[in-house]
């Protein structure tokens, strides 16, 4: 039996963009959680591997290296609070990865990993209120990059 849940769209406030970080308060894309995965692409546009790698590294965007070791030797200091992402494409499919990035708490209640496509957290800094950490297409780009980690 499939468990289906629709997460409703959240309309964010107007874009201020004073700091110029990625997270824009555009209308959020609706997505469907199916058995702890998100099978459908958020945008329908194929992810860009090169940009995905950039977003993953960028400290103001994914900042994945804060917590994960990744096969990116040119970057110093990989964090160790999360599992290594080397070979992650062999362990997880696209739908599972999308869930992990969009809102990992759905599958790991107590995880340290941020929800990269969610709003409404407690006491968010004014500049980031109503904004997601990554944009929908950036999520797809990171997934495309992670899929190359075989």
């Amino acid at each position, binding site marked *: 039996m499939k468990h289906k849940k629709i997460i409703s769209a959240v309309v964010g406030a107007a874009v201020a963009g004073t700091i110029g970080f990625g*997270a824009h308060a555009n209308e959020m894309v609706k997505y469907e959680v199916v058995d702890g995965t998100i099978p459908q692409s958020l945008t329908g546009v194929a992810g860009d591997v090169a940009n995905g790698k950039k977003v993953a590294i960028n400290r103001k965007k994914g900042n994945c*290296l*804060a*917590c994960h070791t990744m096969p990116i030797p040119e970057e*110093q*200091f*990989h*964090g*160790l*609070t999360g599992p290594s992402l080397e070979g992650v494409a062999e362990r997880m499919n696209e739908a599972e990865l999308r869930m992990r990035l969009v809102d990992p*708490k759905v599958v790991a209640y107590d995880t*340290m990993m*941020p*929800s990269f496509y*969610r709003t409404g*957290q*407690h*006491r*968010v*800094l*004014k*500049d*980031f209120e109503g*904004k997601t*950490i990554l944009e929908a297409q950036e999520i797809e780009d990171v997934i495309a990059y992670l899929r190359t980690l075989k």
Partner: protein
Amino acid sequence: MHKVKSVTAMAVLLGAGLALGACTTESTTKDVMKHPYKEVWSGYSTATPETRAMQDDDFANPYMPYVDAAAELWDTPAGEAKKSCADCHGAPDDAKGGSMGIPMKGVGAKYPAYDPESHGPINVELRIQKCQTDHQKAKPFKYESDELLGMTGLVVMQSRGMKRETKAAEQSDPLYPAWLQGKAFYYQRRGQLDLACKHCHEDNAAILVRAELLSQGQSNGFPTYRLKWQKPGSLHRRFRGCNNNIRSEPYAYGSDEYLALETYLAWRGRGLPIEGPSVRK
């Protein structure tokens, strides 16, 4: 009576964000007070050799010039009352505590204390300000000013090596409500990154986040000189930093929220030796 107790215990667990089945009052209360760490250790343990060496030698500790300046203010009469700290407390290291019989030694180890006026916790910074207002009839130093940081360092230093103590987790203690509030704060996710203190300082202590080696986030080293700040800083400045880093709106210096968190943190670090003013990266 019994009912009241278990309701409080429930509140504690809910505050901690834990799911709770049916428990007896006894075991619930004990669980709540159980120490979160197997072993308690200071941020000194994960500090760099450079900052440790600076902290170990008062002549190298960049905090000390601020303490020296405060030592002069200690002896200087101020305010309408034209009284100095020394007039009431003697020298900062006077074991008898001067004419009032209130020594500075021990203050750093047992604060935050209960303030009957505010019915809540008072920390060293606010206590100094209170002495300025009430006893010197002077305008208090501003929170996070060089003067207040210096004076806090001077006071806390008298307790170096003493062990942190607190009874705030006991229901009979007047600081118990603040302890509960602080605990709820510690375990609540916040900010765009959606992290609680516990995710970094309980679940991942001694583990690297990027180039930073996480400590237990204890308070025994405060106030501290941070090389990154190029300046001394209070515990509340550190709280604001940790809140900001996860993109969470910080609270004000000396706010009830941070005083409660400070009260709870003291309990998490009970038994640790007071190190302030320490040096950190």
